[in-house]
């Protein structure tokens, strides 16, 4: 099986950011994303919605270069203000071209 290496970025954040962040991912070159509902606790402990602890967990496969830029952007624009964590993982995918910017869509 011919596989290809990509980065998976996982962002856990206040659910109010879902729409904005997925649009940002698209704009920065991600070919897609997957979101699920989550709850959690962290350093900040601020409660940002009437029903506390409502987070979303956003995952997106992308090239290393794009992942770098996304992390950079998150760190500058979002980390100072919002309850949020983000990490990246090395993963292998089949038919990785799909996830490249300008790749077949």
């Amino acid at each position: 099986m011919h596989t290809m290496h990509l980065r998976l970025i996982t962002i856990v954040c206040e659910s109010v950011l879902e729409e904005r962040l997925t649009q940002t991912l698209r704009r920065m070159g991600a070919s897609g994303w997957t979101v699920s509902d989550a709850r959690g606790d962290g350093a900040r402990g601020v409660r940002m919605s009437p029903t506390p602890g409502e987070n979303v967990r956003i995952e997106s496969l992308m090239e290393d270069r794009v992942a770098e830029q996304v992390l950079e952007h998150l760190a500058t624009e979002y980390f100072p203000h919002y309850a949020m964590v983000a990490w990246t993982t090395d993963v292998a995918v089949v038919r990785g071209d799909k996830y490249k910017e300008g790749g077949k869509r």
Partner: protein
Amino acid sequence: MLDVLRTNLLSPIVLAFTLGVVARLARSEFQLPKDLYASLSIYLLFALGLKGGVELSHANLHQFAGPAGATLLLGALTPITSYLVLRHLGRFTIPDSAAIAAHYGSVSAVTFIAAQTFVTSMGTPAEGFMPTLLTLLESPGIHIALAIGLLQTGGGRPVGETLHEVLTGRTMVLLVGGLMVGVLMGEPHWKAVQPFFEGGFKGALTLFILEMGVVAADRIGDLRKVGPFLFGFAIVMPAIHGAIAAALGALVGLSVGGCTVLAAMAASASYIAAPPATRLNLPSANPTYSLTAALAITFPFNLVAGIPLYHAIARAVKGV
């Protein structure tokens, strides 16, 4: 007045709220499933809109202009007074002052419903067009407060986006949409859906408010962080706004019930439309302040003491 207070304290609404608070303080894990909470709120808003629409189709519309004007005036006034008090007396930062003002400039639909229920049970029902006023009051205050905050700090994302979000949010779709459906369908069709939308209303409200008690009590721990100034603000400001609104209501010809409900609206603080709007537009504001004040102080204050108080004021200014 004391009698009224007692009747109010023993209403299912206030008792259910208290039960939610007590359960949470006893560190119970009890809470409504997220989707049930959302479903009840959808049901309540849509039922409110439908019934309001049916009543609106009977209402005396030439009496509507005055109250509508008064409502819009309150929508412009309350965020500004709130901002000024918070910024200059309370010494809050610009973003924090603006964010809290956005909450107090808008309106809490549940407080509105509780006030409607209260005046009906007092034998002084409000005008049929009150839900229409509610829709007028929700949005302006948020935008005025955010505009102040953004102008002062000079940042911000496109105002159109926020406007769009609030105008097409759940509350607006269900209330305005429900109103229109109600106006158009008329009495006979209303009869067919009435058992669902009217028969179940008060019971569903009771269950909903039980959860609000849990959610409010969840923030009691944050009361410390909020500080004495904001604590006082969250009680005194609503009372002042309520008194102004009751007087204004009398001026434009509203009944005692109508004045009371208008006062409760002006006095109430939004915790549905305002929080996401402020979170996205004023990210450096601390959401703990606004949510704790709106949910854990102002909401219970209005529910327990505010509404009867506005009723007394309304009776006084109407001279009955």
